[in-house]
């Protein structure tokens, strides 16, 4: 049944969390992030000392990033159930989510390029490091749109048996707003709004993680509800 493929897609979200944590955090050791206040030589030293771990960890992180594609798709499917024939918000969510996949994917390649020839000029390593981190932390806008339209779609659910609970709609809007401080990292090299800061990085990161778990649980029950209703209508 199609609920099996949907369950697979939902589990891909959990796969992303695990694999990304393993590669990006434990192997590449990108948590906590290298401070944006480091000078070029200090940044280059990180890539020279942990070359192997960074290379291997980022391969895993790259694979993990692609697992968000099925994850985004299954959310879109469930939003489509809410919207019926004119799934404008579901499609918006699908497009924004696809861009989000790239925002997770591309930094792994930029950091990889830095680790590919760590002996090159320190300035160039720093440039690639900057590119990776800015893309990764600052690009909140697709995620903002993604979470906002999930929220709006859930709140617009007029069905007798809503696909998702209404509080989840408000929760998604809250998460959307929380991503906004990421846009501030362009201004700062230190403090809470730098790319390693409490409010621009850590808070959105933790909330992003929790969002995955909560959406996962909600998706499972939505998929279960859907297969229940189709089974009963088939009888």
């Amino acid at each position, binding site marked *: 049944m199609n609920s099996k493929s949907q369950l697979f897609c939902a589990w891909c979200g959990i796969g992303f969390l695990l694999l990304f944590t393993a590669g990006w955090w434990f192997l590449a050791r990108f948590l906590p992030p290298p401070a944006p206040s480091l000078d070029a030589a200090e940044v280059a030293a990180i890539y020279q000392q942990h070359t192997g771990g960074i290379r291997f960890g980022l391969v895993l992180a790259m694979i993990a990033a692609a697992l968000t594609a099925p994850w985004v798709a299954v959310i879109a499917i469930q939003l489509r159930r809410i919207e019926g024939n004119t799934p404008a918000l579901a499609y918006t969510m699908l497009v924004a989510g696809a861009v989000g996949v790239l925002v997770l994917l591309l930094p792994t390649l930029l950091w990889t390029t830095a680790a590919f020839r760590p002996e090159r000029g320190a300035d160039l390593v720093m440039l690639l490091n900057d590119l990776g981190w800015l893309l990764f932390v600052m690009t909140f806008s697709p995620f903002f749109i993604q979470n906002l339209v999930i929220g709006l779609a859930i709140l617009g659910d007029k069905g007798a048996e809503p696909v998702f*609970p*209404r*509080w*989840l*709609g*408000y*929760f998604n*809007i*809250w998460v959307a*707003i*929380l991503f*906004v*401080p990421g846009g*501030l990292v362009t*201004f*700062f090299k230190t*403090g*809470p*709004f730098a790319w390693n800061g*409490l*409010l621009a990085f850590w*808070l959105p990161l933790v909330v992003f993680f929790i969002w995955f778990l909560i959406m996962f649980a909600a998706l499972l029950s939505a998929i279960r509800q859907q297969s229940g209703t189709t089974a009963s209508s088939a009888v």
Partner: protein
Amino acid sequence: MTSPPPAIQRLPGEAGIWVLVLGDMCVFGLFFGVFTYFQGLNPELYSQSQATLNTHYGAVNTLLLLLSSWLVVVAVDGLREGHNIRAAKFLISAFLCGAGFCVIKVIEYSEKISSGIGITTNEFFMYYYVLTGLHFLHVLIGMAVLIYLAGKTRRELSDKDIQVFESGAIFWHMVDLLWIVIFPLLYLVN
């Protein structure tokens, strides 16, 4: 507020709106905590910078938001008694108060920027721009909600619809409440 008390105590609005409102207030609480902590480390810088802020703008904006909150209360009260057109007028008035808030904020920002004070000037102004900027975003979202609600009054309203109005009102009150904390924190308290 003037309607007869319901037989059963109930939470105004729908339960879900409190996820957003309490969650948002927790985050702002964290922001306020971080601000207060760093203010304690460097009180002179903060009080010198604070002295350059125009408290009149902040005070007028406080009044505008308080007024708008009251207008929303009256609007929702009217709706419960079926005065839809009057409620729409009050909601639009509240929206206009929000717009006035935004105009004053933009004037304030442009004065600061034209005198060379930006987000990277110093730590105080970093918080000033970030806190007021994030709050500004909330005002814009709240204004969109008010307009949506004003449009909704044209239809016959069920009890569930009234809950949606209450939820929107709660969000707008939060926007007001956050400003009531931000204003003294940034403009007044040393």
